[in-house]
Structures are given as C-alpha cells and as structure tokens.
C-alpha cells in the first residue's frame, strides 16, 4: 500500500514538473541556445573544414559532442522530446481548466496553440517513419523506376532558360509517369511546381550533362567512357593515362560570350584537364591517343520524396494560427 502511494507521488511529482512554467521556459531557453550554436558552428561539413576552423583538439571535441551534426544529435531529440512532454502536460492542464471554467475563447486558443505543436510533432514523426527522401538522376529519354516499383518516370526533355546576361529564368523537366509500359500522366515540372503521383513527389533539384568519350589508343584500340559535367570521375586508360573532365557545355556559343537560351546539347564540348577543349565531331590528338566526343545528353536531378505526414503538419500549422490568433486577438 505504501509502495503504491509513493509511485503515485512520484508520478505526481513528474507531472507537476512537466506542467510547470519554469520547466517549459528553461527548455525553450535551452532549445534556443542549442539551435543558435548550430548556426555558429557549420553543420555537416567535411572533417577538414572543422580541422581548419577549430584546430585538432576542438574539432574532435565538437565531433565527440555531436555539435557538428547537432540537429540530428540524440541530445537535440531529447530536448525536443522533453518539450513535447511539457507541451502535453500544459495542454492537459489547459483542457482541465477549460472543462471547469467557462472562460471561452482565450483558453481554447491557448489549448489549441499548445496542442498544435504536438500535432506538428506527430506529423514530423509520422512522415519520418512512413516516408523517405532521395535523389534521382534521369537522362533524357530514360526511365527511372520509382521507389516501390509501382511506376516509372521518364524524362522527355529538360530545359534551362537564361536571359541575355546568362541569369537563370527557368529549369523545367518534361516528365511522363508510366505504368505497365503506358503513359498515365505527363507534366512539365519546374522549381516551384513538383510532380505528384501515388503519394510520391518529384521536385526539380539540379541538372547537368553527360556524354561519351571515345579514346583511340596505341595500336588502334578503342575504348569508350562515360563522362559527366560534374567532373566527378577521371578516366584512366590501361596504360595509366588520365583524362579528367573539368567542365562540359551543351553548346559552343556559350564560349563566345553569347549565353545559351535553351539548354540543348547541339554542339557539346568538354574541357579536359591539361589538354583543352574537346568539341563534338572534332577529334583531338594527344600524344599516342586520339580523343573524340561522341555526343552528350542532358539529365535532370530530381528530389524524390514521400511524406504522408505533411498534411498532419499542415493541420498543426492551421491549429497554431487559429489558436495563437484566439489568444492574442480576442479581448479577454
């Protein structure tokens, strides 16, 4: 009997701690301070960056404390979790008050505002558990099998438009959704206008060029290599000769000071490190090698996302707006 009572007492203590204003304010201050720290220390950079900024001791110390990926660190989730519990306790207390008293709008507003943050939490958690986020790179004319395998997305065309000064005006991808070999939906997406299909969303995120390099080596041996504008990879011949693509352009005109209006690889060219410009259709001799740019095709980079929790988050936003408005705009 005594034991049961002390458990109840303990629970009451915990409850009164979580529903105390001081506890909530302390948590908010901690949240603000820790968030601030994350804007001062660059987040998710390469180890070299921290080494250069803070020296060896501090960069290791920061890494050990998770301060370099702070918003995904366990202690940050603990702060958010405690704040959630505090909000829950506050919401319950407000509800109890509401049921006892009849002082309407202000207390309802207060209840809604506190509850709304919990609703947003739920939406974020639901989205995190039931959703995912990734990246797809699709070449013109190629298909990308959507995660889940229910349909595929084909890039019919990509276009980047620039004005006369070379400033970007629009990035668009003409996409087809295909199911069982048939097109079921076609849409041209742009940066603020994603494609949505069966719970998945495709966002215009990046673009580039990919091409084919033909290398004729000593003895007439021909090799082909995929090259890319991102210059991620260098191509090595078996004898150790290195061809590194620094840049690729879709059109020669961009070199003559005239910016391209439409992003079509009509006369693609690639800059090969230490060698020079390689233009499509104009083979280049380099020592024992002959280089040829066979052609290039544009690709689009799409952010692929499934987030079923987003509507819960938006419901929380609505509740937050209404609740805060009721607290602050209604006379009491």
């Amino acid at each position, binding site marked *: 009997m005594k034991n049961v009572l002390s458990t109840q007492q303990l629970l009451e203590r915990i409850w009164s701690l979580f529903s105390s204003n001081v506890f909530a304010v302390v948590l908010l201050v901690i949240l*603000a301070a820790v968030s601030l720290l994350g804007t001062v220390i660059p987040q998710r950079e390469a180890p070299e960056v921290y080494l250069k900024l803070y020296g060896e001791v501090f960069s290791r110390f920061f890494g050990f404390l998770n301060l370099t990926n702070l918003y995904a660190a366990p202690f940050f989730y603990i702060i958010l979790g405690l704040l959630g519990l505090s909000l829950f306790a506050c919401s319950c207390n407000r509800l109890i008050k509401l049921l006892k008293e009849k002082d309407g709008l202000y207390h309802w507003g207060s209840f809604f505002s506190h509850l709304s943050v919990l609703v947003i939490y739920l939406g974020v958690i639901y989205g995190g558990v039931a959703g995912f986020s990734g990246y797809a790179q699709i070449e013109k004319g190629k298909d990308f099998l959507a995660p889940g395998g229910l349909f595929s997305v084909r890039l019919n065309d990509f276009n980047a438009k620039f004005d006369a000064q070379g400033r970007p005006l629009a990035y668009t991808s003409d996409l087809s959704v295909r199911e069982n070999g048939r097109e079921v939906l076609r849409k041209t997406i742009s940066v*603020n206008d*994603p494609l949505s299909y069966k719970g998945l969303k495709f966002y215009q995120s990046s673009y580039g060029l990919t091409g084919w390099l033909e290398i004729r080596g000593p003895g007439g041996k021909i090799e082909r290599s995929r090259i890319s504008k991102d210059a991620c990879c260098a191509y090595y011949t078996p004898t150790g000769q290195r061809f590194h693509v620094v840049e690729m352009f879709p059109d020669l005109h961009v070199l003559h000071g005239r910016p391209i209006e439409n992003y079509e690889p009509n006369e693609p060219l690639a800059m090969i490190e230490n060698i020079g410009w390689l233009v499509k259709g104009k083979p280049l001799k380099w020592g024992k090698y002959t280089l040829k740019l066979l052609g290039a095709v544009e690709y689009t980079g799409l952010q692929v996302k499934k987030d079923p929790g987003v509507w819960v988050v938006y419901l929380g936003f609505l509740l937050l707006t209404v609740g805060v408005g009721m607290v602050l705009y209604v006379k009491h």
Partner: protein
Amino acid sequence: MLNIEANFLIFAASAYFAAMIAGFLFIAFKKAMLDRSAILFLVVGLILHTISLGARISASGRLPFANLYESMTSFAWGIALIILIVNYIYNVKAAATAAAPIAFLAALYASTLNKAIEPLMPALQSNWLLAHVGVAIVAYGIFAVSFGTAVLYLVKDKYKARWLPAKEKLDELTYSLIAFAFPFMILVIITGAVWAEQAWGTYWSWDPKETWSLITTLIYLGYLHARLVMGWQGKIAAWFAVIGFLAVIFTYLGVSFLFSGLHSYTQ
C-alpha cells in the same frame, strides 16, 4: 524610372530624418508641436516613399519583395505606415520619436543598395514569395515599433522624463504591438515552411535563416508567456522586447551576411 525611384527614396529618407530630429527635439523641449511635426514629416515621407515604390513596381512589374534592396525599402515603408497607425489608434505621444530613427536608417540603407532589376530566380518564382515576405514586413515592422516603445520605456524608467507617455502606457503599448505582430511572425515561418515544401520537398531544414526565425519566435514567445502567465511587466518585459528586435535584425540581416544557406539572396 530609376531616377524617380532612387530620388524619391532619398527624399523619403530625408523626411524620415526630419521626423527623427523633430522627435528628438520633442524630447529635449517638450513641445507638443514638435511631436505633431514629426508625425507630419512621417506622412510626407510615406507619400514620397510610396511614389518611389510605385516607380519600382511599374518598372519591375511585380511587388518589391525579391532581394535585399526591395525588401529593405518595403520594410522602411511599412515601419513609417505602422508608426502613423499606432499614433492614430493609441493617440500616444512620441510614437515618431520611438520608431522614426529605424524607418530612417532602413530607408537610408536601402538607398545605398543595388537597385538593378534582376529576373526572379527560379526558386523565387512562386506566389508564396508575396505571402512570405508580405507577412514578414508586417511582423518585422511592428516589432521595430515595439522596440522603439520599449526603449522609450527604459528611457522613461531611467530618467523619469515627465514629457514621455506614462510608463504603464508604454508598457501596454509595447505588449499590444508584440501581441499583434506575433501571429504574423508565426505566419512568416508557416508560409516559409509550406513554400520550402513546394520548392525543395522539405518544410524545415535547419537552415540558419530558419533557425534564427525560430530563435526570434522563441524570444517573443518567452515575452508573451512571461506577461500572460507569470505576470511580468515593466523593465524586464521592455528588455525582452529590445532583445526580441535585435534577434529580428539578426534574422533579417545578420544571417544573410554571416552564413551561407538557402536564403542567400543578398548577393
């Protein structure tokens, strides 16, 4: 068109400067006439400023919300308008003294910025831009005025200046302004989140600008709780309001200049 836009902005800044001086003289000489002329200068400044903004809008064909110059000149315009509204509704003396300096500084700073009309970059081509920057100008503008009234409160508290409005009135006014602006601050974050979801597929990514807008919101949230729940008033509330607006400034300007991120539109 650039001449009308640039010249009238400088005229407006000059009028705001005159309003600021009249406001300071009001404090020095305690003549009600000086406070009235400060308000009059603000009205003139607002008209001149509106002409400048009108020229910008007709030249660019859109609302002036897209880069630092455009948002800064709109911010200054908003502050001037809000001071006049506060003066009209609350009939409080020294409203111009409190906030005309901020309107002047913002207009002056805007006049030094690059005014070239740039095409909207693809990420900004959205109606959410209007909603997001529109509510930000309202929220930040009112916070600016609340900063001014909080500073007046602290001045009154320290120097017992009799010609300033009563402390209780300044305290109440500061609270009313913050209470009115806070839902707009919430809307700044919400419109930004919904827009980011539409443009990038994520409604929150702890970008420095996002994080600082959250910190600013938390500070004002602290102010509102301290007042409504714990009954804090007076000096500590005034300091809260001052710190809140410093966070606004940092969110608006500091983040853009010190950190790189998704909001790097300041060139």
